[in-house]
């Protein structure tokens, strides 16, 4: 897919009219950045800092979800459209678990929430992981050798199945999520940086660092990288690729489950089809950073979060989705391998 896009891009850039279009696109992007910069300067630094905080927190959540897209794509070249719904499911499962672990609004903001909340995180992440492994086993593995389109359509189908299940479970309306985290914050340079913001950034950051270390150091991480490069050769090294692929789905879903829980704690509301738009944003983040590239997904998530926050804060928030998907299109046209790209030397 990337190859043909690259060819399209070359044709696009080389045609004389293409050059004009390129110029116009660059001018349009510069114009938008200029307008944004004017507004940023006009509103003053404390507001900018506030938006930045919000953007980083938001971006951390997108990054967690984007990692799952990029890992699965990296290993079996499947865009797992059901991944965004696992994120929502993580939120729903954790909101179900909170009272079981004795967490309710009366304990909000106290130190007593730390351990039970940790337990909720772990159980939610494990359940999400198990569900995603089952999905892979039932829906994707039988199609491993089928044409590329078959598992893709199946992934869209799994997305609908998950959304349907969550619709039946919680109904069509917003599900309130208890506001457990302290609502206090620190005032820095006129902007309030909430405990919540710090919580989101720290938890997401820790998970991403653990993942990066795991993939680069562990035996399973090595097996994952090998499987991504050549499945038959990986088998010949004595690695069970079915188990490796299942582990990849597990890890992706663990991050999505954590992301959903963090989202609930941050925004205090969830809805059954949240994963559709959040998933598309995270997918855009993964493509933006370079699909298949783990650092790229983290960077892309952060940038998408920042762009969303900047647009919401300074421009028309109704246009934010348009901007995000315009970025997706521009990346696919001008740099289909994303910002960091995949290092792919010739075989």
């Amino acid at each position, binding site marked *: 897919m990337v190859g043909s896009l690259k060819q399209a891009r070359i044709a696009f850039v080389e045609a004389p009219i293409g050059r004009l279009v390129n110029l116009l696109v660059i001018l349009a992007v510069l114009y938008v950045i200029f307008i944004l910069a004017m507004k940023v300067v006009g509103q003053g630094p404390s507001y900018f800092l506030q938006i930045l905080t919000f953007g980083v927190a938001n971006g951390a959540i997108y990054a967690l979800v984007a990692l799952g897209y990029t890992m699965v794509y990296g290993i079996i070249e499947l865009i797992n459209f059901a991944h965004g719904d696992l994120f929502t499911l993580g939120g729903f499962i954790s909101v179900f678990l909170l009272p079981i672990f004795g967490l309710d609004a009366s304990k909000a903001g106290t130190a007593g929430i730390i351990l039970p909340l940790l337990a909720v995180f772990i159980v939610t992440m494990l359940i999400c992981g198990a569900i995603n492994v089952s999905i892979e086993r039932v829906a994707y593995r039988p199609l491993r050798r089928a044409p590329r389109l078959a598992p893709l359509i199946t992934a869209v189908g799994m997305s609908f199945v998950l959304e349907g299940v969550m619709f039946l479970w919680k109904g069509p309306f917003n599900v309130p999520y208890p506001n457990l985290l302290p609502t206090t914050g620190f005032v820095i340079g006129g902007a309030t940086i909430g405990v919540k913001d710090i919580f989101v950034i720290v938890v997401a950051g820790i998970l991403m660092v653990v993942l990066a270390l795991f993939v680069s150091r562990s035996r399973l991480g090595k097996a994952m990288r090998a499987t991504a490069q050549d499945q*038959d050769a*990986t088998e010949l090294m*004595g690695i069970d690729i079915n188990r490796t692929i299942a582990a990849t789905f597990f890890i992706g879903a663990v991050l999505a489950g954590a992301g959903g829980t963090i989202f609930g704690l941050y925004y205090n509301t969830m809805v059954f089809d949240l994963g559709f738009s959040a998933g598309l944003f995270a997918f855009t983040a993964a493509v933006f950073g370079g699909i298949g590239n783990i650092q790229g997904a983290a960077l892309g998530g952060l940038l998408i979060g920042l762009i969303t926050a900047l647009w919401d804060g300074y421009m028309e928030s109704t246009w934010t989705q348009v901007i995000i998907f315009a970025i997706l299109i521009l990346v696919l046209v001008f740099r289909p391998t994303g910002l960091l790209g995949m290092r*792919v030397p010739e075989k």
Partner: protein
Amino acid sequence: MGLLDVAGINVFYGRVQALRGVSLSINPGEIVALIGSNGAGKTTTLRTISGLNHATTGRVVFDGRDITAVPAHDVVRAGIGHAPEGRRLFPRMIVFDNLMMGTYARKDRAGIPADVARVYDLFPRLKERTKQLAGTLSGGEQQMLAIGRALMARPKLLMLDEPSLGLAPILCETIFRVLTEINAQGTPILLVEQNASKALDIAHRAYVLETGSIVQTGTGKELLSSPDVQRAYLGM
């Protein structure tokens, strides 16, 4: 009973039959060549032995154990190293990491440094390029790495699929010289080759495969002087 006994395997790709009752055996210490033209089923034979493909009927017995239905990742553990067709390296890993992937199934971590040294000894070029990405190596270096990677599992049997394909004559010489060296150090080799004269030259025994069936067998020398083989594979 040899080290490896393949008995009457039939292998299908969908409805197309690739192997028709292929039987062959390898004894300890031997180099056995499998020659034949394109599409004769040489690669399929190796893939079936190493578990990447599976036989519908027939048996593959290695070291006294029936491995007919064993998946590829367990066949390595049984002791068969396979340097596959097209080398199949991990292009985005450096040379050293490719060698380390070859040790994945090993139990004795302690013996690994000595085997790295052995591979670098057999192929000094790899030592010079130890930190280079495998995808950026030349064809000959890639082939050396593919053989080295298979050796890193300490196989009881080494299977090589077209190690000389696409290599300059001088590199071919090197590869075949190293193969005899590896064999002399005690590892039996099953060698698939299109370069029949070179393969028969170093092989103790050989089989000729034609459209999925073994049509001739004998020692390397016998086949080199066989009129059928000379006409079909040696261009005489």
